[in-house]
């Protein structure tokens, strides 16, 4: 699938610009980057280059001819930004074709053949029509249709039309509850990173709610008995010390066994490797349910660099020895290009990542020397009641992400399952000098540092 994600601020600017000349056609360029998934491409558009009246040699209700100089200026801008280009123009009349017309296709073909070899990124063309957006991108072999166009800000908006659902009796109450969000949800591919106590109930909810596809990613095997108390789909019979099963297989078998029409993909790999990371680029949303800082740091990059929303879930148990419970904290953070990332929120730590990556002997030695706090890899205290609470909050955050109402929900909050307190988390806005502000939407031009497979097996 080829997806195009556009920053919502850019969408607002573009729409306002296109509507300003209606009923005449109007257009603009955006810079375009990409992230290559395993199966598809995630195109990333931002920074509109709006036209002025001198930009057009011809402009009318059904014609739009850019001047060579303006096209060339857009190319210059893309070269400076080390990006590709996306030409967006309107078909303001609802009787006009909702996609590229024959004339559009020919102009796109001619421009792409000449401009694409000059650019350091993809070349695409999008039509904005009253019924939705649609477009094409140039590949080596010719033009390819863009399957889905979304706007990403605090929420996700579908700009291209969603194919109609074939609702069954299974869906009536959910449709009544969610309305149009039901349709959006059912068209999604959702990745779940971490298939343990948090990820497994998230995956089951996603399958029960009927998303189109679930991608399960986890390299771990079920080798710790205490996991069985929290991991959905696992049983004590799955504990086989000699031949431990992967968590991905246990969970996938379980959710497939529910009998819903949802595709389940299994990736028993470390998300810090490039191969596993690129699988995420074929999804619409990522649910992050791992407590490893290194993994979370890599997935964290998706939100800003790849304009791919991430819902991060976590738990904290406020128990100290035998003095009793002080809290059962479930936390959810919605990471998008306009919300604070995990670095902004200080929920991941570079020193912890360093320690996670130390060879075990060196870590033991440094721990003895007092340079490293013990317990980085130790299992985090947890309880099923809390992981289920956090997973439910995370999937509700996903629903908010798909709705306009999501704009007024906090992008980060926690709920104390013990005392019943809820709290918005600090900060509300990204930290200006944070890493996440540096390469918004630059995709593979700013891909995260990956861990080599060889380093993991070694």
């Amino acid at each position, binding site marked *: 699938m080829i997806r195009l994600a556009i920053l919502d601020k850019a969408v607002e600017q573009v729409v306002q610009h296109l509507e300003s000349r209606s009923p005449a*056609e109007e257009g603009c360029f955006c810079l375009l980057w990409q992230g290559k998934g395993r199966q598809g491409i995630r195109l990333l558009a931002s920074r509109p280059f709006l036209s002025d009246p001198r930009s057009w040699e011809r402009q009318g209700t059904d014609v739009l*001819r850019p001047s*060579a100089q303006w096209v060339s200026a857009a190319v*210059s801008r893309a070269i400076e930004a080390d990006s590709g280009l996306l030409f967006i123009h309107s078909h303001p009349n609802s009787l006009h074709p909702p996609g590229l*017309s024959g*004339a559009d296709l020919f102009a796109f073909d001619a*421009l792409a*053949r000449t401009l694409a*070899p000059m650019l350091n990124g993809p070349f695409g063309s999008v039509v904005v029509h009253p019924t939705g957006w649609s477009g094409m991108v140039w590949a080596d072999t010719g033009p390819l249709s863009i399957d889905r166009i979304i706007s990403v800000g605090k929420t996700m908006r579908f700009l291209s039309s969603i194919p109609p659902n074939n609702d069954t009796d299974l869906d009536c109450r959910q449709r009544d509850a969610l309305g149009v969000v039901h349709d959006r949800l059912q068209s999604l591919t959702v990745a779940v990173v971490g298939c343990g106590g948090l990820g497994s109930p998230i995956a089951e909810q996603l399958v029960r709610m009927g998303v189109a596809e679930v991608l399960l990613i986890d390299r771990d095997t079920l080798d710790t008995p205490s996991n069985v108390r929290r991991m959905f789909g696992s049983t004590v019979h799955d504990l086989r010390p000699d031949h431990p099963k992967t968590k991905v297989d246990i969970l996938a078998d379980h959710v497939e066994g529910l009998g819903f029409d949802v595709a389940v993909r299994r990736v028993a790999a470390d998300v810090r490797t490039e191969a596993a990371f690129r699988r995420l680029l074929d999804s619409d949303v990522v649910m992050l349910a791992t407590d490893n800082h290194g993994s979370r740091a890599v997935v964290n990059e998706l939100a800003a660099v790849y304009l791919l929303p991430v819902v991060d879930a976590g738990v904290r148990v406020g128990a100290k020895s035998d003095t009793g419970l002080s809290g059962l904290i479930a936390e959810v953070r919605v990471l998008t290009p306009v919300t604070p990332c995990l670095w902004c929120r200080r929920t991941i730590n570079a020193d912890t990542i360093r320690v996670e990556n130390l060879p075990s002997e060196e870590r033991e030695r440094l721990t003895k020397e007092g340079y490293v706090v013990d317990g980085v890899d130790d299992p985090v205290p947890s309880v099923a009641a809390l992981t289920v609470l956090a997973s439910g909050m995370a999937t509700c955050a996903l629903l908010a992400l798909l709705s306009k109402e999501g704009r007024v929900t906090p992008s980060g909050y926690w709920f104390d399952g013990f005392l019943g307190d809820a709290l918005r988390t600090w900060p509300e806005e990204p930290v200006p000098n944070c890493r996440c502000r540096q390469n918004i939407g630059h995709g593979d031009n700013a891909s995260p540092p990956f861990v080599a497979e060889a380093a993991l097996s070694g």
Partner: protein
Amino acid sequence: MTTKATVHVFVNRRKVELEQTQLTGEQLLAAAGFQGREWDLLRLQGEGDPTGGTLIMWNDTVTVKPGDHFRVIPGNRTFGACAPTVHRELAQHVNELRAATGLEIEILEDQGRIFVLLRDAPLPAGLFRVTRSDILFITDQQYPLSAMDMFWTSPEVIRPDGSVPQGADAIETYVGRQWRRFSWHRNSIWNPAGNPLLDHFAFMESRWAAEVRK
């Protein structure tokens, strides 16, 4: 005055070796592999030139220096929602004609008329003074329900002895260029099924073949 020298410039970020430091826009385009005149050529102040550069006309004389940067933008860049159903079918037929002939073909539009431009098409050997010409077919937004008639070539297409081919004395202007109209007409009925564009091309070729046999 032309100075003999070897100089390299960049056209669309590719290095192009030139043997002249003074040449026309058309010559520079040709040296960079862009045939014909359906291109816009711009001189840049570096690849990141925010102005987009300065236009050079095809017959302008350009003096180049080593390392100069130029950019070529295709002339076929007319977007628009007009005549969608016509265009979709015409696009398909043009693709088939392109595949059958290997020619570079463009669809152009002007004031509701649609022009199918075949670039640098070969002409029958010995029939005309030139061996190749752009060819123009004209249709409208109701193609293929609306039939094509006649065809147009560049004005240089005349007989080897300098005479004008029969029925080809009219010079007309379309899409910003002059064309010689061959007022030659089909004998068969236009069939809107299949690919009538291929049929029209075949008609032109068969008429030329008949001229050669005369």
